[in-house]
C-alpha cells in the first residue's frame, strides 16, 4: 500500500467515510474532521509511518506540516517518510 493510500485510509477512518469519498482536493473541514479530529489524524499518521510530524496542535495552520488539503497532507507525509530513510 502506498503512502497516499495509507493516508487516505487514515483520514477516511477519522471522518467515518468510505475511502472513495476522500478526494485529494478536499480539506479536512470538508470531510467533517474538526480540530481534535485533525490532532487524532496526525497521531494516526505518526503511528502508521513511525515519523514525527512537526505540528502545533493549537494552531495547525501555522505549522510547517501543510494540512490545507488531503493532497498537501500526503505530500508532506511522503517528504517526512523520505527524510527518515
Amino acid at each position, binding site marked *: 500500500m502506498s503512502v497516499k493510500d495509507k493516508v487516505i485510509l487514515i483520514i477516511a477512518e477519522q471522518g467515518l467515510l468510505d475511502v472513495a469519498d476522500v478526494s485529494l482536493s478536499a480539506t479536512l473541514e470538508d470531510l467533517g474532521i474538526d480540530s481534535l479530529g485533525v*490532532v487524532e489524524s496526525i*497521531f494516526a499518521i*505518526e*503511528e502508521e509511518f*513511525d515519523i*514525527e510530524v512537526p505540528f502545533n*496542535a*493549537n494552531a495547525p495552520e501555522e505549522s510547517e506540516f501543510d494540512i490545507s488539503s488531503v493532497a498537501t497532507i500526503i505530500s508532506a507525509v511522503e517528504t517526512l517518510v523520505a527524510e527518515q530513510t
Partner: protein
Amino acid sequence: MSEYNLQDLAKALNGQAVGDVALQVTGACEPQDAAGSLMAIATSQSYAERLQLGQARVALLAEGTDWQALNLSGAVLVPRPRFAMAGLTQALDRRWRSGRPGIHPQACVEPGAQIGAGARIGAFCHIAAGVVLGENAWLGSHVSLAEGCAIGSDATLMEGVRIGADVRIGARFVAQPGVVIGADGFSFVTRERSTIENVRETLGDSKGAKPQAFVRIHSLGSVVIGDDVEFGANSCIDRGTIRDTQIGDGCKFDNLAQIGHNVKIGKNCMICAQVGIAGSSVLGNNVVLGGQTGVSDNLFIGDNAITGGATKVLSNIPAGRVMLGYPAMKMDAQLEVYKNLRRLPRMLKEIARLKKSLSDPDNRH
C-alpha cells in the same frame, strides 16, 4: 400570536422579507420536509441545497442568498442566521407557556401565599404560606414552592420543579422539569480529624486516622438567583451553610448541573450538562464550563475562563484562561502533554534500540 406572515417574521427577526410577503408561516422544518406554510430553515449552503428535495414555498435564508434561484414563493433573509433562530423558534413555539391564566382546582395554594396577576398554576402544584410569586408566572403540574420563597415576574417553572424555603429568584426565571433549588448542602463533619482531612493535606497519606461516623451540618443559608436565569432538567442548586448560594443574572445551566453549597457564580455564565461545582467555589462573569466539567471546592475561576468537556478543575483559574483535561491545564499545554503521551511508545522503542547498541559495541550504528 401563533400565525405569522413573512413580513411579520422579517420584522421580528430584524431581517428582510422578499417575494410574496403576505404568505403565512405556521411552522418550521428542515428544507427537504418543507411544504405549504411550513418554513424551510435553509440558512447555510448545504441546507439550501436540500431545498430541491422537498416542496418548500417559504424559507429562512442567510442574507445574500439568491432566493429567486431556489424556486420559492417568498423568503426571509437574515444577517445572522444563528441568532435569527432564537426569534423564529420563539415565535413558532406553541408549547411554550401554553394554556390560559388561572389556578387549577387541584392545585393547593396555602393561605398567605401571594400570587401575582396573570399566573397559570397547573394541577397538583403546592404553594406554601409566605410564598411571593411575581406576575405572569407559568407553573406546569407538580411544582412545589416552599415557605417564604420569592420568585420574580414572568417565571416559567416546568413540571415537577421544587423551590425550597426562602429561596429568592429574579425575573424571567426558567426551570426545566425536575429542577431542585434549595436542597440542603452536602455538608458533614467527623468528631475528630478525619482521614479525608489528612489525605487532602498530605496528598495521599491518611495517617492512620480512625474511621468515624459523619455528623450533619445543617444549611442555614438559602439560594439567591438573579434575573434571566435558566436551569436545565434535574439541575440542583444547594443552599448555603451560613450565607446564601448565589447565582448571577443571565446564567444558563444545562441538564443535571449540580451546584454545591455556598457557591457564588457571576453574571452570564454558561454551565453545560453534568457539571459539578463543589462547595464554596467562586466563578466570575461569563465563565463557560463545558459538559462534565468538575470543579473542586473552595476554588476561584476568573472572568471569561472556559473549560473544555470533562475538564476537572483542581486549582484556581485566572481570568480568560482556556483549560482542558484532568488535572485541568491550559488547553495548549494539555494538548502538548497528549501529543507527548502518544509519542511515548515510539520514544521507548527508540531508547531500547539505543540501549542495545550501547551495550553491544560491535553492533553500533
